[in-house]
């Protein structure tokens, strides 16, 4: 059985995704963590495109650019203002 080899683009994107996930967790300040999470979302979109899954990439794109930041930033603003 031959061992499938990864295209180099896939290897590089996987390494970047792992690094970005570590950075998201290690960022303790919540306002900065949202921005790092946005970068992580875009890296996941690139990963899903490279894995030949355009529907999943579209779904992650609309969710991580609008859905997550809007909800979390309003929660942060509400919890600081009180």
């Amino acid at each position, binding site marked *: *059985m031959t*061992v*499938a080899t*990864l295209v180099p683009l896939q290897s590089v994107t996987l390494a970047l995704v792992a690094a970005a996930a570590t950075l998201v967790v290690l960022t303790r300040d919540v306002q900065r963590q949202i921005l790092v999470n946005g970068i992580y979302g875009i890296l996941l979109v690139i990963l899903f495109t490279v894995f030949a899954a*355009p*529907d999943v990439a*579209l*779904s992650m794109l*609309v*969710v991580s*650019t*609008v*859905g997550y930041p*809007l*909800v979390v930033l*309003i*929660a942060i*603003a*509400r919890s600081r*203002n*009180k």
Partner: protein
Amino acid sequence: MFLPSVALLAALLTWSLVAIPHFGHYRGPYGFVLNRVVLPERHMTNVVTATVFDYRGFDTMGEEFILFIAVTGVVLLLREQDRDESSDSEDEIGSDAVRVGGSLAVGVCLLVALWLIAFGFVTPGGGFQGGVALASSLVLVFLVASHKAWSGIASEEVLDPFEGVGAGGYVVVGLAALIGGMAFLTNLLGPGTPGTLYSGGSAPFVNWAAGTEVAAAFLILFMEFIEAYVVPLA
């Protein structure tokens, strides 16, 4: 206490993940069967959307109801008794460039979102992605105009019927097949021409029902959060 248990979890995960068939050697038969069969049978060129709305349509109905129930939970949690309805918030956007550019952007985003829902069976897209894009294009109104313009669009009297129609329409399309003597959610109408809008039988109806429900649910979610944010600032 945490480090030994996470080391054990990592060891178990590595042991099991290495034993999966190697990356690229997909074994299961259903992927190959679906890729061969969907275009001749249902005349749909997007196999993923055909799977979501036709071959596994029952699971999608369950996912829609998860969305419905979770949004109901958020609405119940964020409802406060002392919310002043008649307060006039002062967040008019002053810059003209933002208003003009943003108004054009709202139109473009709306068209792209509707295209994503409608052509979900031909190219990548579908009810879920297009529904979220539709909700995002309408929340852009709040960002480039004032809160007044946004609350004209996103009020409960407008959005609740859309959400109900979306969630109930899915069940009604499924029941229509049941009335005809076939199983629940059978594809009723004829297949049509592949590669055009007229294809796929009765699956486009559940596609539009899912798209409407997702868009309305997300708009209700955004509306509840924005109300929780704007009212203390007013």
